[in-house]
């Protein structure tokens, strides 16, 4: 198929191949050339050989000296002369994710109308702006245009200080032992859970028939467990504080783990389950996973047969577990001894006027059943007060980054253990943390958007995402999703909706081999793959392929490059893990900070037989 002049310009450095037969003596036009997008497949299948082929920019306007058939690469001997390139190729085809050079970019929007002066400073130093006195009448009357905007200097704007708009303090309480006892309480570093609490948890949910509570200490990591549905921090707000502000108390060294089956023994969240020996199935220390050495308070919930794939089933398992968590929260709230606090950390949302304004769009699953998330519970990662995003219609919900870190999402967690984002993932979300702490960008918020099942609904919500970003007037956006499947359709659509508004956008997903994107568009140029597995597949190891610190750094640097006008190299056709390695090296070289990569499934113990097989 022939291409347009515009496409030819975009692909001026790609090989020139005729799309149809062209007689000698004709001048080569874009319409005579084939779209370079299809060359990879043709080369792979042996139908096309691009050796010695000229670039599109070299042949346009030249005259063909011999008649060529369709799909013939144009070589030097087939044209009268090789065209000089019109312009120098951009100095550096900026390597992907190269950290940006400080590029002062100041734009001053022109004349004033209605008394509003809009000055936009992308990034800059020593900017002096003076505004003539007497023009700020403030009565809305269009006043005389401001003289020579270029000369305007505004010290106030350039030096407008960063402002803390919201902060949450986390108080950590260490737990070294979990025991059963007559009441739920925290005594020093020992957590007691009331005997018989299981019956109340079962009674709270009609669909729950049985609940077993296990305390998994590190010496029991080698025992069997049903599929891990969720990993949750145990945290409570202090006094009347709400999520996203005030003080949060959290227990260190212990987590809640939800597991379960239905009456027939079928795993809840049947697909891609992670049942088996715990230590062989957990990728330790991932943001969403348990840390090695932690104690798990593990519930094994049995729900009514056949409800494991219906919406109320997984929700009941989570709600029953939360009865126990809530009782621990109450005990945590009662603590008065501040000497038990081992560590205090504060998360501040700092708005940085004048810096590039960015937003994080987190696509969360909303197809139904276990593909659901509870948004904004009363207690961190609780159930009470939260709204399932399926019931909210999956439309975008804007939250503060600090609310995300304070447990505003209770994830029912999807299928695919390696890529699903547990509740704990949001509690320690690396992209939010990295962007929040970066003084070069102004993180204005996080948009949570569900991924509905039907395509028309997917496009409905992604248009709202685009409009939200437009209203926020951001310079850059991250779009992240968990796992793969039809959620990649709306993932692509979110990126398109944001990109078409001229906003820089970086997409993050597990892709590699198995999760290759099913759709794409011209705005999907900057992508970060969350894969860590050796083979590039869903390896059934909990949280192995989720977004980690190293991915957050790559994405953040990539977005900065794009916002500052740099370019990111086009991706290779096939998944190649070296791209990540190169980018990580580039970033460490530029920033001078080494990036430590997380281990993957090869670091986990294997049974003897498996070892023999793989070695």
């Amino acid at each position: 198929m022939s291409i347009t002049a515009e496409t030819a310009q975009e692909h001026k450095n790609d090989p020139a191949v005729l799309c149809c037969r062209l007689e000698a003596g004709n001048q080569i036009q874009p319409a005579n050339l084939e779209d370079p997008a299809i060359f990879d497949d043709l080369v792979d299948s042996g139908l096309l050989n691009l050796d010695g082929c000229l670039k599109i920019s070299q042949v346009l306007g030249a005259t063909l000296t011999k008649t060529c058939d369709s799909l013939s690469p144009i070589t030097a001997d087939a044209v009268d002369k090789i065209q000089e390139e019109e312009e120098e190729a951009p100095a550096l085809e900026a390597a992907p994710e190269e950290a940006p050079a400080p590029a002062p970019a100041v734009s001053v929007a022109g004349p004033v109308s209605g008394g509003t002066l809009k000055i936009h400073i992308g990034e800059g130093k020593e900017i002096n702006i003076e505004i003539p006195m007497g023009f700020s009448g403030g009565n809305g009357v269009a006043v005389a245009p401001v003289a020579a905007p270029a000369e305007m200097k505004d010290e106030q704007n350039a030096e407008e200080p960063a402002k803390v708009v919201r902060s949450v303090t986390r108080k950590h309480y260490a737990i070294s032992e979990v025991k059963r006892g007559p009441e739920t309480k925290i005594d020093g570093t020992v957590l007691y859970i009331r005997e018989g609490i299981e019956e109340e948890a079962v009674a709270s949910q009609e669909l729950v028939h049985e609940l077993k509570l296990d305390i998994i200490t590190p010496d029991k990591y080698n025992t069997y467990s049903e599929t891990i549905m969720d990993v949750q921090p145990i945290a409570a707000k202090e006094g009347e504080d709400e999520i996203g502000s005030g003080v949060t108390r959290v227990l260190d060294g212990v987590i809640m783990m939800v597991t379960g089956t239905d009456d027939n023994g079928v795993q809840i969240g049947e697909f891609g389950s992670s049942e088996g020996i715990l230590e062989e199935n957990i990728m330790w220390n991932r943001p969403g996973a348990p840390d090695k050495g932690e104690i798990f308070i593990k519930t094994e919930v049995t729900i009514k047969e056949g409800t494991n794939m219906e919406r109320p089933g997984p929700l009941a398992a989570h709600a029953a577990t939360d009865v126990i968590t809530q009782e621990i929260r109450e005990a945590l709230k009662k603590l008065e001894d501040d000497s038990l606090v081992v560590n205090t950390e504060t998360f501040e949302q700092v708005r940085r006027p004048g810096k590039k304004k960015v937003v994080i769009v987190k696509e969360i699953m909303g197809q139904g059943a276990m593909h659901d998330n509870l948004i904004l519970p009363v207690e961190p990662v609780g159930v009470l007060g939260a709204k399932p995003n399926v019931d909210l219609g999956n439309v975008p919900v804007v939250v503060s980054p600090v609310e995300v870190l304070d447990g505003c999402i209770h994830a029912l967690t999807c299928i695919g253990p390696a890529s699903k984002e547990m509740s704990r993932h949001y509690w320690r979300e690396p992209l939010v943390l990295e962007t929040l702490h970066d003084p070069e960008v102004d993180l204005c918020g996080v948009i949570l958007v569900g991924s509905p099942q039907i395509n028309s609904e997917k496009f409905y919500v992604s248009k709202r995402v685009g409009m939200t970003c437009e209203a926020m007037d951001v310079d850059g956006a991250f779009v992240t999703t968990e796992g793969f499947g039809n959620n990649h359709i709306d993932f692509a659509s979110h990126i398109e909706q944001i990109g078409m508004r001229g906003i820089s956008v970086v997409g993050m997903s597990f892709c590699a081999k198995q999760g290759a994107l099913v759709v794409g568009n011209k705005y999907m140029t900057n992508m970060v793959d969350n894969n860590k597995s050796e083979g590039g597949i869903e390896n059934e190891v909990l949280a192995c392929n989720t977004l980690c610190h190293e991915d957050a750094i790559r994405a953040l640097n990539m977005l900065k490059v794009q916002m500052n006008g740099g370019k990111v190299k086009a991706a290779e056709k096939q998944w190649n893990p070296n791209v990540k390695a190169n980018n990580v090296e580039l970033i460490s070289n530029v920033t001078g900070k080494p990036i430590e990569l997380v281990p993957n499934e090869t670091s986990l113990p294997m049974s003897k037989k498996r070892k023999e097989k793989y070695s």
Partner: protein
Amino acid sequence: MKYDDKLITMEGVIVEVHDGCVGIDLKGRLGYLKIPMRMLITDYEIKVGQEVGFKMSFVEQLGPEPNLKYISNQQTYQKRQAEKQAAKETGKEETK
């Protein structure tokens, strides 16, 4: 894998619809698939009886050795099934 690029077109019929998954009978009695919602691309509301299509190649063995992890999971599942069945039967007898 040796034959993974030999794509063939398959068709099936949706026979079960749940909140989180669908069951699909492959036409010609060539098998049955149960897939989570997110693995199904839908333009319309999902209904039993709708036809679906996809491309696949043939399923190949990856090696001769069974993976012990899956064998042990399978055995655990069967053991639990048997226990549950036994518990149900004793329950019935007691009510008699």
